[in-house]
């Protein structure tokens, strides 16, 4: 595995780097937890890796809390997200997804930007962020910023809208409009760590004083070419009391969620299994323990 590596330390150096390599073969990486495995199996002679991990710019490395929402730099690692008190309080779904990702060791180096840009349909953070209706701030080579909802950013398995002259700078999650929440992440796999989701469901409901669902987000992972936002299910739940969702409505939600999925057979599980488990897990969201 021989390749060139460049390690910009600031936004300016990064932009320069991008400009210099536009005509060549380059890859961006920060935590390297996915890229190195991929490179072991591919030819790397002509490759330049732009190593983002040395960039000190706060826009890339910080978690910035504003009244309008929270901005997470693309280089923030997964462990930081899991430990952040504001995220823990306002976006439990994201914190739970972060804590469920891979293992403690990997969470210390893998970044949120990397997890998103891999565009894996089973990406844990991606699933939570789509449910949270997060958007991307993409830095273009000319220094301008392009905004795009994360849902639109994903175009297929391992495919995003990111162009060769762009780099993901940060993710913005809009602030909650109410303080009462029902928010969580369900991950189905075969073991409790180092696991790629077979099915995942993220849900984030903002509740009114009477526990009515005012704003809802539901996303599912590993059951379609991309993470999917379940709009019909989210709309259906509007204004329902989160504590008193009737069993027939629970089944309806599970059905709507299942309808937005298009799972396939692969080595980890069959489409049949994914469908069943998606339905059962979706049903369980509103079950009172």
């Amino acid at each position, binding site marked *: 595995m021989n390749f060139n590596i460049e390690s910009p330390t600031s936004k300016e150096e990064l932009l320069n780097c991008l400009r210099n390599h536009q005509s060549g073969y380059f890859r961006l990486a920060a935590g390297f937890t996915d890229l190195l495995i991929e490179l072991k199996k591919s030819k790397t002679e002509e490759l330049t890796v732009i190593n983002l991990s040395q960039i000190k710019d706060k826009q890339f490395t910080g978690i910035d809390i504003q009244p309008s929402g929270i901005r997470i730099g693309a280089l923030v690692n997964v462990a930081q997200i899991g430990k952040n008190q504001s995220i823990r309080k306002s976006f439990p779904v994201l914190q739970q997804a972060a804590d469920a990702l891979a293992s403690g060791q990997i969470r210390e180096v893998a970044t949120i930007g990397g997890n998103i840009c891999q565009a894996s349909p089973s990406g844990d953070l991606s699933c939570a962020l789509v449910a949270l209706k997060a958007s991307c701030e993409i830095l273009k080579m000319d220094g301008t910023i392009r905004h795009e909802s994360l849902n639109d950013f994903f175009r297929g398995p391992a495919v995003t809208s990111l162009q060769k002259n762009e780099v993901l700078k940060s993710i913005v999650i809009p602030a909650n409009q109410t303080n009462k929440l029902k928010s969580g992440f369900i991950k189905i796999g*075969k073991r409790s*760590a*180092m696991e790629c989701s077979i099915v995942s469901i993220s849900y984030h409901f903002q509740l009114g004083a009477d526990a009515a669902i005012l704003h809802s987000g539901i996303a599912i992972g590993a059951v379609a070419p991309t993470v999917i936002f379940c709009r019909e299910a989210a709309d259906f739940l509007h204004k329902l009391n989160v504590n008193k969702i009737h069993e027939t409505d629970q089944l309806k939600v599970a059905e709507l969620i299942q309808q937005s999925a298009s799972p396939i057979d692969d080595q980890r599980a069959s489409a049949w*299994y994914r469908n069943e488990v998606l339905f059962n897990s979706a*049903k369980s969201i509103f079950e009172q323990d």
Partner: protein
Amino acid sequence: MDKNLNIIGKSKPKLDGKERVSGRAVYGHDIELPNMLHARILRSQYPCARIKSIDCTKALGLEGVKCILTAQDVDVNRIGYKRDHPVLKKDANCQRDEIAAVAATSKEIAAKALNLIHVEYEEIEGIFDPFEAMKEESRQINLHGKGKDLYGNKNIAESFHYSHGELEKQTKRSKVIVSRRYELPRVTHCCMATSNITADYSTMDGRLTLYASTQVPFLYQRDMAHALKMDPSLIRIIQPVIGGGFGSKLDMYPFEPICALLSIKTGKPVQLLYGREEEFLASPTRQTMIIDLTSGADADGKFTFREVRITMDNGAYTSWGATTPFVMMQTYSSLYQVAACDFQAKAIYTNNPFAGSFRGYGNPQATFSIERNNDLLADELGLGKDEIRLINANYPGEITGQGLHFKTCGAKPALTKVIEASNFIRKNREKHKGRYLKGVGLASMLHVGGGAKIYRSDGCGTRLKLDHYGYLDIITGSSEIGQGSETVLAMIASQELGIPMKHIKVVNTDTDVKPWDVGVHASRTSFVAGNSLLGAIRLMKQKLDRKAAQLMECEAGEFLYENGLIKRDKKEIRIDKVAREMHFGSPNELCIVEYFYEPESSFQDKQFMGDVSGNYAFASQAVEVEVDTFTGNVKVRDVYVSQDVGRVLNPMGLQGQIEGGVATGIGYALTEEMIYEKGYLMNPSFHEYKLLTAVDMPDIHFYPIETLDEAGPYGSKGAGEAPLIPTAAAIANAVSNALGIEFLTLPLSPEKVLKAWSEKKQNELANSQSI
């Protein structure tokens, strides 16, 4: 040996623990010799193919490439238990087949050279199903196999038949008979350290030094010499720290003579290290087996007979793993009292990778089938799962149908203990409702506890050297592969000679230095090496006693050894002073002794009858699971382990063995499986091969049973393999208890469990509608 023990029985951390966890330990991967070359192996592109040509011209032209070997470049003997395994292959018979090997000045160049070797293959449709392989019209898979002459079928690699009792009579008097076919998956050891070897051949004196991760250095030395057509005494085996064995290093594999050959050809040291993917592809596995078992019991619940037919997928070549029936037949014949047994096992050649030996050695598979059938027999008789086992439990003094003599036997105490501790009787009858269903399962096991006389000697040699300063070297033939036996040896010496642990060193890594031992297997090391050490200590004490008596001017006889002193009444002398005086005083001798211990076990006769082990280990486990009926996930909540270990030597070390074994057993039951499609391994990584992690581990409750068997050191028995043997059976029984569903295969993957649960629910629905 009833005396006050102040070291034995008290927890001691492993001698090599600090080195291992701090990174100071020198594994095979850490070895660097001057001018060392790096080797890589080119493996077959197809699981089954004729090789028409191999062109190494381009690869040889690459700068840094020093040597390339193919089958036609070497003059070697075939290897393996049946000598049916060419070191380098002329044709491909499985995916891991070694076609060529490169030695180069760097790992990168060696890897590059592999890509430049051009092999022209003619692919042949492989045979991957053992039943297919046994058909008359199937072609002969291994051309060196002697199946046609020996067993009447060209694709049978090995066959065993054993029986005792009157099968027909026992079948007739059975009230219930249960027949099932079980299929057990292929799993692998997942050693933390990948396979490795460094070979250093000297063109000066023709001697070959191998830094090799083997469990059996003296058999390995002999196998290597046979393969290379060398004199064994010219081969020195040095064992670096071994990062996991679990049986995987019982055989010598082709990569090892290949690396030696590269060193011989180049006259330079050569190192060969596997990557993780190669480790999955090319290291041994547990036997996949299809077991047809019929078991009977009479009206009182007494077992009447077992009739079993086992079909093992041998893969393309035969390793020691093909002899797992030796162990399995003990389990079928003697786990619980059985009046009659008829056992047949065949290892069948296929184009799958060859299986090797793995902790438990066939016993987890055998135990799984027996203990599943036992639950079914209990159900049919209306007996409790605990009752049927207690009725039939082995007992002290029993001589089984196969001739195993249980001079001590903790089977019943172990069963009783886990039944009580787990609240088995209540929990087994409880019915649960809702999403999460709990269940509890029980299983027992029998395994050798005092070595196993399979090879011509099951012995171990020990040399002891006490230096002028009171420090002791234990030079033992036995090896440490993580099981903790070297710590036990140091504890024994400290106990007996009164020398502090920190003054004791265990030397056990060099065949030029250490005396002979058959190797680490059959849970034998603490037993055999411990007895050997005690023998050596007796000799050393005789020497020291004589000298001490002379120096203290008192009568000859036994002394007390304590805190570095040799004492009697009010007289005492430092042990180091005695050693010095032995050397410098008349008759000028060193405080060195040597002892060889051979267990009193006997060989089996041609009908496999005989008492092969110095003693026998018994264990029971009760497992509580919780099944998520939404996902099919099985969560093991608690494992209750009770094991007859004879005597606990090092509680901490034993606990480690128990927990490690149970972890492997849970993986075998629930998640681990090598997935093959037409001879290709589909999941050669930890990403897709689901080895469980630390956070998946349940609470493990351990209750040792001490039967103080006189054959073992301080009454102890072998303990290493036992803890994983009944785990999968107990889990499967627990899942069946939770769901009311029978499972005939492992692993109990979430998908398999959910599918069975969905079918059950649909059937129930259909039945209720039809009523």
